């Protein structure tokens, strides 16, 4: 049955309304053919009687009430999946845009996915070595985790994400890279950024293992709503059907949330904070929760979403709600960046919730949990000493506070700072941590057991 509905009843923002629709189903896809023959796709987002509200992915520009024919597709948004997608570049709704033509579809899936049954989940505890000290030691990335990078405009989050993607490996496995894939989804990012990622994938020779979904800043806003869903459906397919370990990079989640807000406001929904819809949390969760490992498959989906905090405000709804869903966060700091520290990971607000089960004896090294705990505690005292110094001057500080200031400087310069190519092993990172703790007297190290101190602590000679 292929009924075509002529014309529209109402157009507002990215939404169009059709009356007299029969047998429409919720979230069903539609195609709209304009008089000039061009086609647009959309999705039914509300049904009331015979009236259907349609959200158009390519926007409503040049639509009139009379120049369209609309056809219902009878199914929700789906994407064709295949291993051949590796190495390909697709647009925000999954059409190839690299000029290499269509790929052969192995399977077609609903992009909305389905929630993973909590009892089918395998609890993640495989340590991923990124070669970056601040992450490996203090906010350890675990396979199957969702660990976002909270950043701001002008901070090197793309470089960091790229370095993680390039260097990430699981230490105890003879990783030959054959079952490793990257799914990259760009939502509302600049052309330069997309090109940077593409070039870097190419240079490091992994492009053949990368699927890129690009919705750039001048692409239709509404399409952005679908882009991460296409990317995650692809990732699930590769991970759970082809047993691959998939790293998903989603950038920029703030642009995604803004697209959601735009759609919501043109629907006339009641806004909650900063105009974002009340279901922003559920919506973000439906993306982030698609990371993980399931018991029936060998692969995994690890997510590194990148989001820019407007005005560096971590309490803005997007980073705030993200932090409540994801398993930790890596926060980049502007002050560190200005001081020339790369990667400028602000360690105190950064956190990895899964690290406690993936580090220590049998995973990294037995002293790792205590060491990271102590570094956090000591670094927070550096902050106290600094704020005191800003009032009374460094000279007036007590001896112990002066030691903290010196420790803080050395920590920034040696532990946090590393070059963009530098790939430190976890042993190097941990040893470096102990070396720096040597600048502090033993009595200050209250998070470490005596045995561990005995074995690793060496006071630094003055």
């Amino acid at each position, binding site marked *: 049955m292929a009924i075509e509905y002529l014309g529209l009843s109402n157009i507002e923002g990215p939404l169009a309304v059709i009356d007299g629709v029969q047998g429409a189903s919720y979230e069903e896809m539609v195609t709209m053919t304009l008089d000039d023959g061009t086609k647009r796709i959309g999705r039914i987002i*509300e049904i009331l009687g015979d009236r259907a509200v349609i959200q158009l992915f390519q926007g409503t520009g040049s639509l009139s009430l009379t120049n369209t024919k609309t056809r219902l597709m009878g199914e929700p948004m789906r994407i064709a999946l295949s291993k051949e997608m590796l190495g390909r570049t697709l647009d925000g709704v999954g059409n190839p845009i690299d000029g290499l033509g269509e790929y052969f579809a192995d399977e077609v899936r*609903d992009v909305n996915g*389905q929630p993973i049954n*909590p009892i089918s989940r395998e609890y993640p505890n495989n340590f991923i070595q990124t070669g970056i000290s601040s992450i490996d030691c203090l906010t350890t990335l675990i396979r199957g985790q969702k660990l976002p990078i909270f950043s701001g405009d002008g901070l090197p989050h793309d470089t960091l994400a790229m370095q993680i993607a390039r260097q990430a490996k699981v230490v105890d496995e003879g990783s030959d890279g054959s079952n490793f894939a990257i799914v990259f989804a760009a939502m509302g990012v600049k052309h330069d950024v997309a090109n940077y990622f593409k070039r870097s994938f190419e240079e490091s020779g992994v492009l053949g293992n990368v699927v890129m979904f690009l919705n750039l800043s001048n692409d239709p806003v509404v399409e952005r709503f679908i882009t991460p869903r296409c990317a995650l459906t692809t990732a699930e397919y590769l991970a759970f059907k082809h047993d691959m370990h998939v790293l998903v990079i989603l950038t920029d989640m703030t642009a995604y949330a803004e697209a959601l807000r735009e759609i919501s406001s043109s629907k006339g929904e009641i806004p909650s904070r900063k105009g974002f819809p009340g279901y922003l949390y559920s919506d973000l*969760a439906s993306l982030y929760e698609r990371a993980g490992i399931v018991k029936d498959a060998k692969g995994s989906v690890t997510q590194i979403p990148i989001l820019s905090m407007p005005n560096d405000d971590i309490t803005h709804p997007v980073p705030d709600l993200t932090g409540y869903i994801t398993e930790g966060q890596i926060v980049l700091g502007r002050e560190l960046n200005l001081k020339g520290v790369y990667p400028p990971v602000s360690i105190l607000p950064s956190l990895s919730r899964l690290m406690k089960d993936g580090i220590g004896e049998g995973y990294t090294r037995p002293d790792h949990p205590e060491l990271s705990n102590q570094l956090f505690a000591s670094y927070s005292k550096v902050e106290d000493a600094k704020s005191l110094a800003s009032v009374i001057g460094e000279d007036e500080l007590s001896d112990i506070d002066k030691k903290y200031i010196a420790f803080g400087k050395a920590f920034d310069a040696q532990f946090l700072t590393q070059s963009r190519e530098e790939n430190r092993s976890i042993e190097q990172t941990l040893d470096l941590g102990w070396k720096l703790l040597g600048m502090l007297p033993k009595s200050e190290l209250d998070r470490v057991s005596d045995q561990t101190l005995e074995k690793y602590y060496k006071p630094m000679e003055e």
Partner: protein
Amino acid sequence: MAKTEGRIFGINGPVVKVKGSDAFEMQEMVYVGNEELVGEVISITSDTTIVQVYEETTGLKLDEPVVGTGAPLSITLAPGILSDIFDGIERPLRDIRKASGAFIDRGIKVTALDENKKWNVTIKANVGDAVCGGDIIAETPETKLITHKIMIPPNLRGTISWVAKDGEYTINDVIAKINTDNGELPLTMKQQWPIKQARPYSERQAIKKPLITGQRIVDTMFPLAKGGAAAIPGGFGTGKTMTQHQLAKWCDADIIVYIGCGERGNEMTQVLDEFSELIDPKSQRPLLDRTVLIANTSNMPVAAREASIYTGVTLAEYYRDMGYDVALMADSTSRWAEALREISGRLEEMPAEEGFPAYLASRLSQFYERAGYVTNLNGTEGSVSIIGAVSPQGGDFSEPVTQNTKRFIRCFWALDKSLAYARHYPAIQWLTSYSEYIDDLTPWYNANVAPDFMDKRNRAMAILQEESSLMEIVKLIGADVLPDGQKATLEVAKAIRVGFLQQNAFHADDTYVPLEKQNRMLDIIMLLDDRMKELVSRGIVFSKVTETGILDDIIRIKYTIGNENIEAPFKEFEHKINDTFDALLAQHNEGGIS
């Protein structure tokens, strides 16, 4: 009775409008569409009935049927609940996995509890017994730890006319018959109860016993009573979930109901894994034997998230009726409030603060008021304690959910970002937290732990309070210029903060600390305070104490002294403190130090 049937007229997210019948009842459970998705009637107008659907509505079509069940949304109560994991409307996730694999399909039909399993039932009632709601007629070991008591449903009364013999029965087998005013009725082990209605009890009792958790800052500083309600608010990363897990593991309730409401899937997996492995020290059985989990993760349907809280508290009340102390953890009530907001928004109701519906406060109070220490209908005593995590937006406690929650709880454990940043766990801020149960519980503590326990607790709190005002000065001019007496206070406060309040959940002994040890640790700190004051009054430079290393030793007693046979090592340690200070005093008297 003919089933009420209507037709789908409108769909917007989980909210479905139905036309074609005016016979639906409020809160009636309905089946929506050809896939028979579970839903509940939430609003009725003259021509339209509004239903919220507990599953994803993608693919629902106009004009599909909506069928009423004639009963409110209810859950099944019978043996087989414990150690299992359910979704928000009591569908067992293990069976769902068998039916649909790693991902959850829609419209799956599974029964809540295993109907084939045979339970070893001992009949307690006799023919001729006059019984009424709540009376125990039989029991069966549900797990090695918990005996499940089969009770007469609360609204029934009559005379037992027949009982089965002791033996093996499924939950659908008739184990007794009862003569009521409406004739003879068969009784099975199963009963249904509507989740939004509190189960009746005979009488509410005054609070008298603490819920002992083994967490020092909770037990000593801000205790929760059995039958009380507490809230744990905190921004992300401050350790709400970690604290909830610690309480669920170690608190001395008989039954734990753990609700993962709109939170992470991996966390539920973790609870499931950990609780199967962790052994309860008293019974040598896995903790899962006394636990029921309700998982409605953040990506599962939002309406079922709203129901999960009620499902959990109904299960808790059911076990309370058997005479057990039940602790319910809800993580997180903010996600539940957001589910209310989302549905309210789709209904286009007039919002109150921050888009939350105006009935947020009344819904919260209905939930928290289901906590309590009661005498049950059958004369036993039981309690439901509720511990709700709150996730305030932006970590700002002035938002509506935190503020409204504060009105209905009496114990407030405020988690603090800066403590969490410094990895001081549990990151419960001692200056902003409070427990209104202290007065109710003081007699218990003084009688069961030590007569001066609460005095010591109050003294420790006063020291912390003083530290906080001193820190204001230190922030401006540094600690060096303070007089010795105040420096000494800062050191004692540090011993309290680091040595007592900070607790290591990953340390074999420190993860759970019995009250006796908490009491003795307080003794040590009080002794330190006394001796420091003495030293200062003699004019001894206080840095001499630091040099002895005794302060570091005090901070480490949580690790150096175990949980068993504590008296001897504590005595020895007290001697050590006294010796150290005596030596300093002696040196001073000889003029060795000034």
